[in-house]
């Protein structure tokens, strides 16, 4: 065997190794007991070149591992929040950034898992995840129409306030995106659409000023005629006197209503 043949063989072997590495060892590391090891593996996964990433995400073992890990981490974050400690203090400050890597991997995985047996459960875990109400996660999830709206409806009564914020913002984004076919992964039925606007409209009467403000913002995001009618009707009423938590905000409720109306008008 010539040296050139040996060299060619080695190159061939390394190419095979490169495609096998992500699904095998990354999955193994994502199952590690240490979140730091899991974090490193997820960062590696998210940074794989496009071709290798597709191969890795196509692996059923990896899909299952990420799916169950997301549900577990959501639970861990909620428990830590309820105790008032927070995952950053409980597990180390880098934990939140690790979760963000998991979220990024999960969002990349969603189109592959959606429509399979695990799809509904996985989508629900993502909706219940840890993200800001105005983050791109909301925009991405909103493309899943009825399926995401149905989880969001349930989440409007979640015990954790930030999950309720996310629920209202998701409903606004789902309706807002339903008109943009290119961004929608599933359709939004007329009934779900009506229900979403109804839920948002009812939230305007909430005693929690944070919910009211998210509902106003979400109605503005829908860009719909129905929402415009609701907002204008609300605007016609005298503004509530500001007290308690409302005083923390820079703007008044009326000012937020005006901004929402203007957003709808700008979308036309």
């Amino acid at each position, binding site marked *: 065997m010539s040296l050139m043949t040996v060299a060619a063989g080695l190159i061939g072997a390394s190419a095979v190794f490169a495609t096998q590495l992500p699904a095998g060892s990354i999955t193994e590391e994502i199952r590690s007991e240490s979140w730091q090891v899991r974090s490193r593996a997820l960062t590696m996964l998210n940074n794989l070149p496009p071709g290798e990433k597709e191969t890795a995400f196509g692996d059923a073992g990896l899909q299952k591992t990420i799916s169950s890990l997301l549900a577990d981490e959501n639970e861990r974050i909620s428990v830590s929040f309820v105790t008032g400690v*927070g995952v950053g203090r409980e597990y180390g400050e880098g934990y939140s950034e690790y979760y963000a890597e998991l979220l990024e991997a999960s969002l990349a995985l969603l189109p592959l898992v959606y429509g399979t047996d695990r799809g509904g459960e996985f989508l629900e875990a993502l909706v219940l995840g840890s993200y800001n109400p105005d983050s791109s996660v909301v925009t991405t999830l909103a493309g899943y129409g009825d399926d995401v709206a149905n989880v969001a409806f349930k989440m409007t009564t979640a015990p954790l306030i930030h999950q309720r914020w996310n629920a209202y913002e998701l409903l606004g984004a789902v309706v807002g995106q339903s008109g943009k076919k290119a961004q929608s992964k599933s359709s939004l039925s007329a009934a779900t659409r009506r229900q979403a606007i109804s839920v948002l409209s009812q939230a305007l009467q909430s005693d929690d000023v944070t919910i009211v403000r998210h509902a106003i913002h979400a109605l503005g995001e829908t860009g719909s005629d129905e929402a415009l009618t609701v907002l204008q009707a609300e605007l016609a009423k005298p503004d509530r006197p500001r007290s308690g938590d409302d005083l923390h905000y820079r703007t008044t409720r009326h000012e937020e209503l005006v901004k929402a109306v203007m957003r709808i008008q700008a979308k036309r």
Partner: protein
Amino acid sequence: MNSVRGVRSKPTTVLLVAFGLVQCFAGSTAWAQSPLASVTLVEGSQPEPSSAQDAKPAAGPSAGEPATFSSVWGCDGFAASSEPWLTAEAQLMLKVNNQVVASQIFYANVWGAVYSVSAWVESSDDWRNVSCEIYVADLNGSTSAGDYGEIPPECGDERTTLIAEYGTYGVSWAPGCYVFTQNVPTSSHYSFSSWRSPNYSWAVLKEYAVSNVYCVVSNHGSTPGLNSGYRSPSHNHSEGGATNSRHVYGDAADLSASQAAVWDSLRANAKSGACSIGCVEPRSATPSWFHVDYRGPCPAGWELD
């Protein structure tokens, strides 16, 4: 070399023009296992400087001032010819910021030869690259090798120790002396002693970050407590912070926010008015504080689009 960044390349050999395959010198000495050129960068070696121009000046540093010529860097190089009947010409160079500070030309046969050069290197208030390089050529072709490192800054005060902490704790970045301040660089609702790390009188405070936190708090109306601004790597470690926490980069702040409405209004205010939009750790992870940083692209879910 004990660079505070703690990262340095291993000596490498690069074949610029093919010798064919790397040659094996079966039955020869220990050099037979070696490539035709290799180098090692050495810090703290104490050989006499290789030329008069590199001699250490008589005057030492004054108290509180940076030393002028503070360390000796050495460069050990090995070269060999590719075949027994050839002689290789080698040039060994020690470079600082790509400028040659010491060099030597020597000749080697197939068994190889080892030469060293060294130089006193002037201290600086910023990081510099240092390299040991060798270029070897004979009638069959040429090859080269390099070993690379970084020279830490010397500030003449506690900043030198503070900079060393970035390497000790594995931070991916380390500042130069001039990055530190003893004042809040722009308008702020918080004093310098609130922003800095408790164990040092210097801090890294990125002006755009302080300015944006000022904007967020001004929009907010009342002034929440500043739980954490800049953290030295050791303080960050003792607080359980991530190795590359934005607090050691001086572009993050944790504001007190145990009430959901305070957190939510800070979030809303962080993207209103003239504030640049930063990265905000989701509420679910921060039950009693509001973390904002200005790193650039945010982790997933931390954006305020």
